[in-house]
């Protein structure tokens, strides 16, 4: 085990030097790195949000809301078909996922008509090759209509994909530094925002679905805005955005919707100097908007955002150019955010914030400093202890330990793994545990000497016999680290990464580097080099 061919020596040193090179950039500033030659690695360790400061948000798309909306659409479709065929229905029940009603004369013709209408209204959701999205069952006069499970799944999946895109657009508009936005599982979105420790503005931007509609105010009834009576059929009572207590009665029919917007920009009204948002419709939106304003001059037109009336200006003249402006007593930040929301588009369903973890930059910096200090002290303590116990061999193990530490750093930089606070703890733990492989070997060597072997044979056999123990012992820790990696997310995951890297580098250095050092001095080794008394 002590013989190294030149090729072996070369490859061991090459692996170590290359890994160490990758650790080097971490000890220089970004500006200094610029001056390094091109072949030199420049990647630094990726710091987790808990070390560099930043905000982590876990959101969930409210999938119930999506299904509810689908069922509502289906409800409207079914009633329309029944009405068209002059069928009288009763006991119409809308539950979470199905419709149920009693009707006479329901036949396969009507069934087909409902299916076709529902299919044509959900074209954008259906997967290729879907024959139907409905399951219609009939028992005598009782009819029940459900969506197929596949369709529900597809709807949710589409909505989540769409939400992801809109979340990305909204956050990009704010110009945050390198945000990471990822889908997690079936209906969740993880957002990582480095450098942001107070995500209030982002949370409020994401907390709105931003569904914009233009609806006519119902002027057929006189009512007290602070105590409205029941709305007439076809109209609804909506609160004012500025004052919850102030109500409007608005016609339910949506004249134009936010989906027809192509641009929205914040600005100032030239006359009043009040912050406004000006918007522009696409061709279809412009035509619709033109027609409505033309037909309703002199009437108030409500601009509704997420079921709240922003304002309800009176139409002074037909607006045919397809652009307009919203003023609703906002300040300039509110106008800016509203413009962002309108440009990014409406979310298909509300987002619920499940988890928020934000760390300020101070705490992160303090953590790094404390971690570094603890690492240095722990390191010195281990080094002294090893020399105390194993003398010359201890010194070799210490050299290996130093190399080992830099290799962990190098591997972290090379793979751009994220270093977190628990990750630093993992490195410090590695300092303590990395010497284990060498300890196992040295103890074996001592034993061999006591059993009468000469020094060279003792070292030979020490390595040979310790090998399987070292592998078994390290594989158990590695199993724990792997399980932790898959179970955890965020900072704790960083711990499992450094722990696992530490296991590999420590076994590697023990079996190559320390062994190489020992073999180079093989002829001069004496029992007291490993901590035994001279005459053992």
């Amino acid at each position: 085990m002590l013989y190294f061919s030149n090729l072996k020596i070369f490859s061991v040193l090459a692996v170590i030097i290359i890994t160490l090179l990758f650790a080097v950039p971490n000890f220089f500033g970004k500006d200094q790195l610029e001056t390094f030659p091109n072949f030199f690695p420049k990647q630094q360790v990726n710091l987790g949000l808990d070390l560099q400061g930043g905000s982590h948000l876990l959101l969930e798309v409210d999938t119930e809301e999506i299904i509810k909306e689908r069922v509502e659409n289906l409800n409207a479709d079914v009633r329309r078909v029944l009405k068209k065929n002059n069928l009288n229905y009763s006991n119409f029940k809308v539950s979470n996922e199905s419709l149920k009603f009693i009707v006479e004369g329901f036949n396969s013709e009507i069934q087909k008509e409902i299916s076709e209408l529902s299919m044509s209204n959900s074209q954008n959701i259906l997967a290729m090759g879907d024959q139907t999205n409905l399951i219609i069952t009939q028992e005598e006069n009782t009819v029940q209509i459900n969506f197929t499970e596949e369709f529900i799944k597809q709807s949710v999946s589409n909505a989540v994909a769409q939400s992801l895109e809109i979340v990305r657009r909204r956050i990009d508009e704010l110009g945050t530094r390198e945000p990471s936005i990822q889908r997690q599982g079936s209906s969740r979105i993880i957002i990582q925002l480095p450098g942001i420790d107070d995500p209030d503005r982002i949370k409020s931007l994401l907390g709105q679905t931003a569904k914009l509609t233009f609806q006519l105010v119902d002027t057929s009834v006189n009512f007290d805005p602070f105590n409205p009576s029941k709305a007439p059929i076809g109209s609804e009572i909506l609160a004012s955005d500025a004052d919850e207590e102030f109500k409007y009665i608005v016609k339910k029919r949506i004249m134009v919707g936010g989906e027809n917007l192509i641009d929205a920009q914040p600005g100032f009204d030239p006359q009043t100097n009040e912050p406004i948002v000006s918007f522009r419709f696409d061709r279809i939106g412009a035509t619709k908007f033109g027609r409505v304003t033309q037909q309703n001059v002199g009437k108030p037109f409500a601009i509704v955002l997420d079921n709240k009336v922003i304002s309800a200006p009176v139409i002074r003249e037909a607006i045919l150019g397809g652009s307009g402006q919203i003023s609703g007593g906002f300040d300039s930040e509110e106008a800016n955010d509203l413009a962002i929301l309108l440009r990014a588009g409406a979310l298909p369903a509300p987002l619920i914030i499940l988890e928020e973890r934000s760390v300020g930059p101070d705490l992160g910096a303090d953590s790094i400093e404390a971690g570094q200090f603890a690492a240095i002290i722990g390191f010195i303590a281990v080094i002294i202890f090893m020399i105390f116990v194993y003398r010359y061999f201890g010194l070799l193990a210490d050299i290996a330990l130093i190399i080992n530490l830099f290799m962990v750093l190098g591997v972290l930089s090379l793979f751009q793994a994220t270093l977190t606070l628990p990750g630093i703890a993992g490195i410090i733990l590695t300092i303590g545990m990395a010497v284990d492989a060498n300890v196992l070997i040295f103890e074996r060597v001592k034993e061999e000497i006591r059993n009468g072997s000469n020094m060279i044979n003792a070292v030979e056999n020490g390595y040979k016999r310790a090998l399987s123990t070292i592998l078994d012992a390290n594989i158990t820790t590695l199993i724990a680290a792997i399980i932790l990696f898959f179970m955890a997310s965020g900072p704790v995951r960083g711990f499992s990464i450094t722990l696992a890297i530490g296991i590999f580098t420590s076994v590697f250095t023990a079996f190559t580097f320390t062994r190489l050092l020992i073999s180079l001095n093989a002829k001069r080794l004496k029992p007291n080099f490993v901590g035994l008394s001279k005459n053992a």
Partner: protein
Amino acid sequence: MLNISGTQINFLKVRVITFILSAILIFLSIGAFFVNGLNFGIDFKGGTLIEIETSQEIEISGLRDNLNTLELGDVQVQEFGSSKNLLIRVEQQLGGDQVQQDVVQIVKDSLGSYLSTDINFRRTEVVGPKVSGELIQSGAIAIFVAVFAMLVYIWFRFEWQFSLGAVLALVHDVILTIGVFCITQLEFNLPIIAAILTIVGYSMNDTVVVYDRVRENLRKYRSKEITDLLNLSINDTLSRTIVTSVTTLLALLSLFIFGGEVIKGFTFAMIWGVIVGTYSSIFVAAPLLRYLDVKREWNTTSAVDSTR
């Protein structure tokens, strides 16, 4: 010069005492689990945690009284490392995930009007009921999976007797670690689960080294009495067990003292786990083999023993 080599301590002689000690500790741990329970942090209980740093010292009880008038339920305020660093915990609000988000703003507003000093918000964590439920579940699953994986690995590498002995020692360590958190009422959060998993790995690592030697000695001394053989194996590996435990503890102690307040609980769990894991490898895992009827006829031509 430190020399622990060549000891001949009769570890198995005290096995009755150590088994009783372990049994008492396990009993205490389980008792504390049902009487005190774990003091779950917001990772597992849900709720809001805010760490602030102020420019002047704050009178905690006054701040606590003030925050408790906000009708947010139980609000805890405690010093965190220094008298200018405070940790504020607000219990989970009724009404699902969305309501939890309002708490931060309410507390921030209240702090702003109550305290006249500058406030630096160092950390804000809000965990809703859905996530906390999932985290506790996945944490428990992870520990079970880890223990089970060890069982399988040791079974694969050794014999079922060893596997059973090792896993009993492992369960012993996990119970005592959870127990110490029940008794001290230190906060039990996500990093503690990570610590327990690492303890599982570490304790197993220690046990494997002793067991490896037991297996080797079983091949070497075919007629040696099992108690003597186990004693010999523990003594053979004792020096290594102690050296590795000391180096690991040195590193962990440094982290505990200098590593900052945020990971103190984690480091405490690790230190405790290393001590318990070392103890259990010597006084639980190895002596247990005496009762598990280990196989004596090992194939002497296996790789490990090929030189002799």
